[in-house]
């Protein structure tokens, strides 16, 4: 009972992003229809947010107030010269014939405002403050409900945010929220709730519950994204396949098989991330993400992908072999000859790894091990980090192809990360890509040296980089 249901109506001129705002606030990408054309939404339709199991907040999308100038004229006509409250003749208007014909759309929206506790007034701040806006605010003012103006499109170049703020304060609206539903910012959303809270004393508990829920969900989302990324990296880092040193054919086939597996694993991570963030694959293109059908446009093992990163894959790259697999040669002096021969045959790079008991055994049997090189791991990490960041911002509105930010390159050589990854390299059992299911070689190690432990540690390290 201390948490009454809060009813919110989203109103505004047509095409100012009311439906988009509702989609963002409800996290429901399927809600209503969004398009840059006018008068797309023709009906009032609602969604309730379930908070802690209860439907606590009801949000209503309304048709745009298209002809506020005409409506205000009409309202003034209705008033005539009698003195009446604004709300009184709004009521009279809603019963009139005009409310069903000429101003049907406006009537629907106003009726909903009257049925709600608060109205969010969506504004396209790229517009100048025009008469129609003034009249809309005037009409809303007569509805005797608290109104929170929401400045939409604030990330646009043409945004005139300060002009709008100035005008709104002139008409006594001081609790103004800013929001851009395309370039999403969680802080903006929190501030919007704060503004509502200041106006709605009786619904504080409800709004607090909603605020807490959103905050918690965001933290969870970041955590879960970090985990997915950590799992991908562990799977790739620990992935090992043995090939006979002498058999070039087999070696080449194995490289192909490995590449395919790593590639598929990356796609799976993309898919899982999209799903986690409730992003439909087709939204990616709209948001300028370089992901089509849940796949990265640029192949992981293509030289362009490396270039995009500004990575050079060692000296052997000169041979044009910017392939992300390293022949793992244990005793440089001893095996370099063979390794190079195979390297040339399969176009892989030569790297060096640490010695490990099993590898010595392999070596004795004329086998060598293939694994992803550091550049591939970096590429995986950077690409997915960029994706997660974009998803957390619900996609950027910029259509620029994704580029590495300045800080990223420094992060490539991050020490603490590489410690965990190097550890993963000597635990083939940690990789879900390795030959069998993980536990066919159950680890004799203690829990904290399990895959789970490594994933957790890595996720903790990655988390701050996602913000």
């Amino acid at each position, binding site marked *: 009972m201390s948490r009454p249901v809060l009813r919110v109506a989203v109103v505004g*001129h*047509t*095409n100012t992003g009311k439906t988009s705002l509702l989609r963002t606030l409800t996290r*429901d990408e399927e809600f209503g229809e969004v398009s*840059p*054309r*006018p*008068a797309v939404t023709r*009906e*009032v*339709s*609602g*969604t309730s*947010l*379930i908070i802690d199991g209860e439907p606590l907040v*009801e949000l*209503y999308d309304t048709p745009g107030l*298209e*002809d*506020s*100038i*005409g409506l205000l*004229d009409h309202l003034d006509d209705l008033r005539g010269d009698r003195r009446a409250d604004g709300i009184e003749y709004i009521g009279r208007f809603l019963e009139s014939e005009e409310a069903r*014909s*000429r*101003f*049907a759309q406006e009537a*629907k929206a106003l*009726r*909903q405002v009257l049925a709600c506790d608060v109205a969010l007034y969506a504004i396209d701040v*790229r*517009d*100048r403050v*025009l*008469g*129609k806006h003034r*009249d809309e605010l005037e009409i809303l003012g007569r509805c005797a409900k608290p109104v929170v103006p929401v400045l939409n499109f604030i990330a*646009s170049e*043409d945004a005139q945010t300060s002009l709008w703020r100035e005008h709104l304060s002139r008409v006594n609206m001081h609790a103004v929220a800013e929001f851009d539903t395309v370039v999403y910012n969680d802080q903006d959303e929190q501030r919007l709730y704060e503004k509502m809270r200041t106006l709605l004393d009786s619904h504080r508990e409800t709004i607090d519950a909603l605020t807490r829920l959103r905050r918690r969900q965001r933290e*969870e*989302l970041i955590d*879960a*994204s970090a*985990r997915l990324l950590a799992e991908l990296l562990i799977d790739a880092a620990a992935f090992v396949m043995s090939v006979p040193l002498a058999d070039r054919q087999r070696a080449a086939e194995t490289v192909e098989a490995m590449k395919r597996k790593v590639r598929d694993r990356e796609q799976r991570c993309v898919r*899982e991330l999209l799903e*986690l963030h409730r992003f439909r694959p087709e939204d990616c*293109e709209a948001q300028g993400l370089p992901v089509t059908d849940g796949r990265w446009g640029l192949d992981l093992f293509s030289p362009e992908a490396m270039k995009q990163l500004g990575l050079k894959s060692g000296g052997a790259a000169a041979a044009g072999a910017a392939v992300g697999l390293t022949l793992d040669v244990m005793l440089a002096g001893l095996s370099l000859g063979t390794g190079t021969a195979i390297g040339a045959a399969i176009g892989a790079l030569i790297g060096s790894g640490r010695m490990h008991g099993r590898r010595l055994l392999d070596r004795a049997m004329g086998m060598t091990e293939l694994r992803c090189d550091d550049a591939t791991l970096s590429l995986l990490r950077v690409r997915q980090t960029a994706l997660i960041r974009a998803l957390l911002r619900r996609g950027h509105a910029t259509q620029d*192809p994704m580029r590495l930010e300045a800080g990223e390159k420094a992060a490539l050589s991050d020490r603490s990360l590489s410690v965990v990854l190097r550890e993963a390299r000597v635990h083939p059992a940690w990789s*879900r890509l390795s030959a*069998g*299911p993980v*536990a*066919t*070689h*159950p680890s004799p190690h*203690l*829990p*904290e040296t*399990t895959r*789970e432990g490594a994933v957790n540690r890595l996720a903790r390290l990655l988390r701050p980089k996602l913000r």
Partner: protein
Amino acid sequence: MDKSVHDSDSLADAGSPGKRIDFSDRLLAETVRSAEAVAGISPAADEAAGIGQSAGGDLENRIVRRAAALSIAGNLKDALHQVGTATVLVILAGVVLSLVAGAAAASAALGAAGGEPVNVFWVLGSLLGVQTLLLLAWIAVMFIRPAASTLSVASLGGIAMSLGRRAAGWLHRGRSHAAAIEATVSVQARGPIGRWTFSAVSHGLWLAFNIGALALLVTLLTVRQYTFSWETTILTSDSYVSLTRGLGWMPRVMGVNTPDEEQIRATRGPGLTEAMSDASEAWSGFLVGCMVMYGFGPRLLLLGLSLGERRAAGRRFRLDTTRPEYLRLAAILMPATESLGVVGEPAGDVGSASADGGKRATRGREARPNGPPAILGLELPQMPDGWPPRFPSTLTEAARWQDLGLADGRDDRVRILRHLAESPTEPEALIVVCALTTTPDRGVGAFLSDLAASLGRSPIVLLTAGESLRRRGDGDELTQRVADWRIAAAEAGIDPERIIELDLDHVTDVSSARLATLLGEGDESLPPARRIEAAFDLIVRHLERWSSSESTGAGPSAVKQAELHREVTALYRGEESAWRNLLHGSAEAAGEFAQRLKSGEVGEQLKAGGARVVSLLPPRLKSSARWLAAGATAGALGCVAAAALLSPVAIGSLPIWAGLGAAIAGAASIGRGDAKSADGSEPTPAPACGFADAVRAATLLALLLETQGRGEAAISRILDASIPEESAEGAEDPDTSQSARAWLDEVRHRFDLALAREAAP
């Protein structure tokens, strides 16, 4: 003694709807998570998701119900069961071993009967010493740093459990078993349940050890004769007395006979007399009593405690629903929203307002004499050049315009309508300037129809600011917006032919001519002279000059190309502001550019100029590397040419040529991005370096300058129609003066046709 992590019997009915979920159900859910992490979402998951969703309750409950309803649940349950059994078997084996070890330790400690007297404290030490130390360590870890205790299960328990898992892994190699083992490990690695399980196993094994030892001790003491003694080198007898009395206190309380002080003193060895052997009975009691009280007893108690705690931990165990796999499931299982559907009466019965807006547009007022043409701006955004727009003087003298001002709100509308109604003359034309950045709505429609109704002639709706809209979004949005405006205006009763798209920020003599025609003054003002022929002649002349001076193969230098572009631009000198806008975005930008040109820091502007032209290319040309390069070149060199016309400089001496290539490539690659989304193929931009490329770039510039002032969409259309399809062999590359002449003739011909098509309504 079931020490496996799960209770196998309760697995049988996991997930039946009425039952409360318990640890085994949660373990099954974890196992499903592990299995799905490897194999992907299970088949028939939708149905199970439905069950999970309808189960209600919190997320965990839904996850558990879903897991139990999956078709793989049966297999996984069996696997869990088998893994559990294997673990139990290993632990049982451990128990047997411990019994044996205990017995062996006891018999070794007592030694052969009838030999040397048995050293009591030696026996006690060897049977209780190690385990007491380990017990203390366990206590320390469990109660002082519980967080670290998962780590310290390197105890017997930890080793036994790990061996159990290995055994299970060896016995069963299926995916379900792998998942079962992984889930078990991950559950144990997290929190108290693993800790207490390991403890229980440890204590159980030690208990078995104690049982073995005690059993043998009692048996041997029963059937054999031992003499007991104790020895010391540095301690006093008194301390042994108090030690023995102290240790013996607990057994004594339990009623066991332990040696008294005299007996203790008497059994100090070596050199024991026969007489003292009656103390042996008391010593045996002491030994057995100590083993029970300090070995067997504590382990039994702790085993009980551990089992109890483990059970409690099992009850408290909750799934970590913040794991990504579960969060993803949350989206399906636990809708965060509930649709309330459409509120109020459904659509359909309400008549569209704009329709009756059209009806209100009644004409047929009494005729009034014509006044000067009037202009008004309807809900315009900030205009860069202010209001009213500056039309070129060729169109009509400024004095003749009647400016009705901006219609921003109600008062303006009333004022304008009243003015139109009350004025003794009727404007011979009313131009309503609307911005394409504004969404046409019913309010606008109503005003337009009021305007139409107040005049005898349909007003002219002039749609401007297309460029601003295109900057905000993509070309499709612009096309759509133009169409929406046309619909809105037509519904308001505006004659469709009197709706024109004309960017006032880029007024040219071409666009003013169109306007003039609409105003009915077309015959008075001269049709703008065409300069495309002259431009094409220039191109051919330059090409001849280049090919005579350059060796074939290498194309003309950028400087030479820039000269050509400057001459082409000079042909259009009359529309200076227009081409400046076209190439630089705005007149100020052009001025600034001209300033900076001399310092050479203009790479970005050149790129922007190139990108602007590239963005005007129709999709067909955008998907061609050549035309991308030509567009970027035309834009970049056009910028230079325009600037050179503004503040005359010697083009060749400008310090800009080094950065030009990069700017052009950059601009072209922007276009490439667009083209890729258009048709999926990915052209690679090549720098315009050959003769043919230079011709293409200059041709584009000429076409653009000729068509400027038209809407962006129109320019794109005209370009699309004018540029011939590329022939496959490339034999007709316009790289010699003849082929270039022929090619340019074709372009001009197509251009004329395209213009004709545009002019047709």
